[in-house]
């Protein structure tokens, strides 16, 4: 097995683990704000690692660029989406946990 294959595999597995951790946060954290804290961030790192890992694994530059584009788009979407949800929740008068 080649070195790139191993590195790619490790990155991909790590990325999937991050996604699982994000879901854990989504399920276990007490309110919407804390969940927003946990899940999108973990997901972004996870997806980034998966994209990078798959790019390394495949060894194709064009594919890697496309994967990076996917990740960037998702980064923007998730970040803005999380912010919007938080803002909307605040406006609806949902109190953060512990306050």
């Amino acid at each position, binding site marked *: *097995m080649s070195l790139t*294959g191993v590195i*790619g*595999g490790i990155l*991909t*597995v790590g*990325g*999937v683990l991050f*996604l*699982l951790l*994000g*879901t854990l946060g*989504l*399920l276990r954290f007490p309110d*919407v704000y804390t*969940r*927003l804290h946990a*899940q*999108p961030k973990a*997901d972004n790192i*996870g*997806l980034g690692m*998966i*994209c990078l890992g*798959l790019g390394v*694994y*495949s060894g194709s530059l064009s*594919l890697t660029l*496309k*994967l990076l*584009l*996917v*990740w960037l*788009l*998702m980064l*923007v*979407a*998730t970040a*803005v*989406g*999380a912010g*919007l*949800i938080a*803002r*909307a*929740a605040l*406006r*609806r008068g*949902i109190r953060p946990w512990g306050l």
Partner: protein
Amino acid sequence: MTDLFPLLMILLMLNIVVGLMRVLRGPTAADRMLAAEMFATSAIAIALLLAVLTQREALVDLALVFALLSALAVVTFVNRAWSGRVRSSDGEDRP
């Protein structure tokens, strides 16, 4: 490696199934929407894994489309479904 990817796909699919619990429980609409967002990420990851596994570039395009459109649902949600606007009584969109 080709043995590893299907397992990862199964894990991600299970991730979605577990996340469905949040859609079920809520309690607020924001929680449900957040969970739905998470599904897009997992679906993209699955599509990418499959793309590399089966050597199909079309699946990368699919992931691209998912990524582009994932913002649409959230933006619609905060602007339309959960906007808390007083509707209809002010007749704002009657000509």
